[in-house]
């Protein structure tokens, strides 16, 4: 187990990842709590509420991800959706030809 951990890059060791989660949680909490001492000027009233930025940021991301997920059900297609089946063989051979090329500078 210890050997396994040593082989991993330090950044992806479970212990580091755990520390990163703890560290980020502390930062997130501090950023919200800082509003008790720092005055956030609201332009439209409600945007000065305590923790508004945090909630708004999280909520709008949640909505966007969910909308994307739902749209994905309708819009996602396999990679070769637009490919002409007859053209596919040609495409493969020409791709190999042009793989490596330099301008000779």
């Amino acid at each position: 187990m210890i050997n396994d951990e040593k082989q991993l890059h330090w950044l992806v060791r479970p212990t580091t990842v755990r520390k990163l989660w703890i560290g980020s949680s502390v930062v997130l909490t501090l950023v919200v709590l800082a509003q008790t001492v720092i005055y956030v000027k609201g332009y439209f009233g409600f945007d000065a509420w305590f923790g508004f930025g945090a909630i708004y940021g999280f909520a709008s991301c949640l909505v966007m991800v969910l909308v994307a997920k739902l749209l994905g059900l309708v819009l996602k297609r396999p990679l070769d959706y637009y490919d002409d089946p007859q053209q596919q063989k040609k495409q493969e051979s020409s791709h190999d030809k042009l793989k490596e090329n330099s301008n000779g500078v």
Partner: protein
Amino acid sequence: MGFEIFPPAFILLIAAVLICLVKGHGRTAVILIAPIITLWAIWQIPDGVQSTIKFLSYNIEPLEGSPVRRLFATIFAIMVFVGGLYSFRIARWYELAAAFAYAAGAIGVCFAGDLITLFLYWELMAIFSTIVVWCGGTAGARAAGIRYAIMHLLGGVILKVGIEGVVVGTGSIQIQPMLATDFSTWMILIGILINAAAPPVSAWLADAYPEASPTGSVFLSAFTTKTAVLALILLFPGEPVLIGIGLFMVMYGIIFALLENDVRRILAYSVVNQVGFMVVAVGIGTEMALNGATAHAFAHIIYKALLFMSAGVVIYRTGKNKCMELGGLFRTMPLTCVCGIIGALAISSFPLTSGFTTKSMISQAAVDGNLMWVYMALAAASAGVFLHAGIKFPWYVFFQKDSGLRPKDAPWNMGLAMIIFASLCILLGIFPEYLYSLLPYPVDYQPYTVGKVLFYLQLLLFSGLAFFVLLPLMKRTMTISLDTDWLWRRAAVSLIKLIEQVLGAIGEVIAVQRVRLQKFLHRMAINYLGQPHTADSKERGVFARSWPIGTTALWIAGLLSAYVLLYYL
């Protein structure tokens, strides 16, 4: 008549020709020195119209200076230099030549004093950017290049229709602020918006840019959409339609980038998203907003090129461009990773990066105009940008799982190009005054107030939290997303096939009926006119028989009486 000042665009055009003619170190020298001379030439152009040429009955003004024009031209020239540095060792010579000619078109548009010059340089850009797309070299790139060319030539035609209309209607070819009030101004607006990747044709951008070569997409990301923004600033400041269009582009970019798996396509969608911010700003149209649009375009070219560069290095080194195939590259590509992260932070307008000092001006303009919904939408979009580009791009490329790939880091020239742009991102974030002093209108704006920084930190960090909490929902799939281009890539093709089938079926029916008609007429002819060689007249067709003369006389008498009768009636 003539040029008192040599047009900067011509320097790049000459350089493009030279790139074709010289080889080796000579070519490298041209690639690196020409943009610097261009930059110098750009700053020699004073404000106002510099030269006029009489063409037909029009006064063509190929060179007109103003702060906003100079600023766009400046960033284009810087882009050509750093892009040239990035690509000169791996890009093919014709790709670089096309990229230089393409940039020449963009810089030409910057200084175009009249609509005719604008149109000429506009088409120059369309032609050579298509060639840059084709330099991707794959069958996909060829097909995407054709679609790209059709879209841009169509946009050019619409723009030309509008220009003709305005010239006929007002008699002036001057570039001056207008509003979309009649047919011709609408045509101009639509022509420009097509280049800005506005709905409903935003798809051309994400279709074409990722098909170009890793170096080509760096150039492509910079010029076309930003010249469109400049044209909007010059022609349509304060056009209210643009606010709605811009907000749509902002949201479209985020949603489609979230669905995407191809690394460069994610970045392409976020170009649409960022240009959306600028279009909103032009729509607001106040001095603060136009300053914001200009500053944001300047900063955007830098960090977007930086992102495309870092994606380009990854694709160059690994040959892979799908999020699913990448990951864990931070181990062996630290420089590319750090530069990519700086670009990602800048695009997310994180404090201390160029995105924060420029994009927040647009939000401020929305506040000043008391546009609450616009402001809130822009704030939500800022969170979304952090989600789709700020974290998603570096996370899937450099972190997430270990893909097992251990590619080398960037070659020195690509690394240097990325370092220059990464430093500019941070420099403009810490010392925004340098950029502010170049903006078209005097800037009275303080980007760093404690409250604002705290608000944006909350907004961005919690959207970062949302990313990791929602990670299971964002599982990458080997898919593409349908867009409006489905209409012409699939529906129109099916429709044409259907029409072909229907016409074919009708044709068959007609052919069958024609044969039947032929046979029928043939039968009739034989029936009435047939003359078998026989002595018996009775066996011939009715009109081929020999009749007694008396019958004929009777018929003639009958007909004549009928004629006489009718004559007197």
